[in-house]
């Protein structure tokens, strides 16, 4: 009877009146830690390994960022050897390459947001207008497919399509142009990056919108029609407001990943010729840190990037809470 039966509330001297009376109601009174541990130790024990994971592989690296302020020697302590203050921060602030890659990050992030955020909404609305459910399901299945591919495969496909003998250059030649070595020209990189990103994400991005669309009350359309709204007005005044919470949530999430613009994809697609437009903060710190072994310097840049990322999410969240009353938490 006194065994740690995990899910039963322990007997109390003064049990609160149960509204249904059938089973004991969850008590409101705060338990002390000792009671909680005695009662739920088995549950807590299940959390030990996952907590170790978070501490070692998530929080320890956060602390590891102190090497941005300390001299780090490969093979030495992972927290560095001695303090050097803001040396590495000053170093990247006065590094012209840093500002180039910073600008590139903003431009690529901005372009990605500009296309990859609204296009799924448009596609979801178009799909929603399809009358045949079979056709709709087919288009959906096809458009989700790129989401399941490895970035390496996407990059390899991009390279094949854009190579001198690839499809795009076949089209260019067909209309009488000269073949363009797209991937070797800095001027093309942004378009290539953003369109491959759209290709890969637009279909998958519709899922949540399509789900939200099905929850919109048919009566609202009925009411709008009685008020004389045509199809377009119905979309504008009923459909879009109906999916607004989803839009806001996804916008915040998109803004949160703004600074982390497709590091892996850029790493696969860029080359020294396209650095002027393709090199972003994360790829730069990869080269500085991992390739050239300047760990402290790279960590300083990485810390800067993470802090900006966090600030962006927090402010986007705060703004949306003020403005539209929707937020992530």
């Amino acid at each position, binding site marked *: 009877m006194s065994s740690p039966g995990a899910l039963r509330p322990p007997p109390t001297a003064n049990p609160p009146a149960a509204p249904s009376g059938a089973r004991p109601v*969850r008590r409101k009174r705060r338990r002390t830690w000792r009671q909680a541990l005695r009662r739920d130790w088995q549950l807590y024990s299940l959390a030990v390994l996952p907590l170790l994971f978070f501490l070692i592989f998530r929080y320890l690296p956060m602390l590891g960022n102190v090497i941005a302020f300390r001299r780090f020697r490969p093979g030495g302590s992972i927290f560095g050897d001695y303090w050097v203050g803001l040396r590495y921060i000053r170093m990247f602030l006065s590094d012209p390459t840093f500002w180039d890659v910073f600008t590139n990050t903003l431009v690529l992030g901005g372009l990605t947001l500009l296309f990859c955020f609204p296009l799924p909404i448009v596609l979801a609305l178009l799909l929603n207008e399809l009358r045949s459910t*079979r056709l709709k399901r087919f288009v959906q299945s096809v458009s989700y497919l790129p989401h*399941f591919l*490895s970035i390496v495969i996407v990059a390899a*496909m991009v390279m*094949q399509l854009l190579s001198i*003998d690839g499809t795009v250059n076949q089209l260019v030649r067909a209309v009488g142009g000269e073949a363009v070595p797209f991937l070797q020209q800095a001027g093309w990189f942004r378009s290539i990056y953003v369109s491959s990103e759209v290709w890969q994400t637009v279909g998958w991005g519709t899922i949540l919108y399509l789900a939200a669309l099905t929850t919109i009350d048919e009566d609202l359309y009925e009411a709008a029609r009685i008020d004389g709204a045509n199809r377009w007005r119905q979309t504008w005044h009923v459909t879009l407001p109906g999916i607004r919470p989803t839009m806001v949530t996804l916008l915040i999430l998109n803004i949160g990943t703004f600074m982390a613009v497709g590091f892996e994809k850029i790493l696969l697609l860029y080359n020294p010729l396209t650095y002027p437009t393709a090199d972003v903060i*994360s790829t730069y710190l990869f080269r500085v840190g*991992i390739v050239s072994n300047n760990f402290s310097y*790279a960590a300083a840049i990485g810390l800067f990037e993470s802090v900006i990322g966090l600030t962006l999410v927090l402010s986007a969240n705060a703004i949306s809470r003020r403005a539209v009353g929707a937020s992530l938490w």
Partner: protein
Amino acid sequence: MVIADRVASRRVARARTGIRPSRGYRVFRVVNAIVLTGIVVVTLYPFVNIVARSLSDNAYIVAGQVNLVPRGFNIAAYKAVMSDPLFWTNYRNTVFYTVVATAVALVLTTCYAYVLSKKHLKGRTALVGIAVFTMFFSGGLIPNYVLVTSLGLKNTVWAIALPNAISVFNLLVMKAFFESLPVELEEAAAVDGLNTYGILLRIVLPLSKAVVATMLLFYAVSFWNSWFSAFLYMDQMDLLPVTVYLRNLIAGATDATSTGGGLGSATDVVQSAATIQAVTIVLTVLPILTVYPFIQRYFVSGVMLGAVKG
């Protein structure tokens, strides 16, 4: 079935547009169908193109004459890639890494999600917070690299499995599912004398086959597709997964130096870059394409489940 679908959707369409669709709306529907067809074509074209290239003669590819159908049909490039022992070694590595990493991830995620789903648990908010915070702030590449290196995980499967053991998104999906299970069953099992572990193993998990399958697929696909951890932490060619094999192949091609490492003497020099790359892409993407029709709906339902929470 088809007729029923059509009737139903027409009824919806009519109900929503009044007695009959306006002229403008009918024009829109045609345009819409064209646009969506375009999207399907654009999405599928690269796949068709790669297959065509993989089966073509290199001379036609270099001449820029291959798009939808193979020209100079031959399977020499397939033979070349498939006779490369490194390709098979790396393919086996991919399978091995995926299995180990998925198993670790599944166990840890299930345990934690189950704990987090217990609303009465003291400190639960903090436990959720610990996980969710890492979605928005991360240590960054360099400290992670330093950590994994100094733990001595380099060149082992743990460098891939451990740092990515819990995806917070998956964790929240699973937590949402566990929360939706009826409490009465677990309470009854507790009365019958099962402890927490017994309840999880014998009551909760058998009821959660759907979500466990979904998580399995989420993790398996993401580990199968991953390349960067291996690229970062594996120094030896024979430890690489097939994604990095492909990466080395295409990186070699962009640097215009060679067709990449490890193709071996089996490869005819003339039978070069383009075809070999296409074949490797096809062989790498094939397993995903094969299972895609079956796993797609699990993914969709998983995402929806996660969104309910968000």
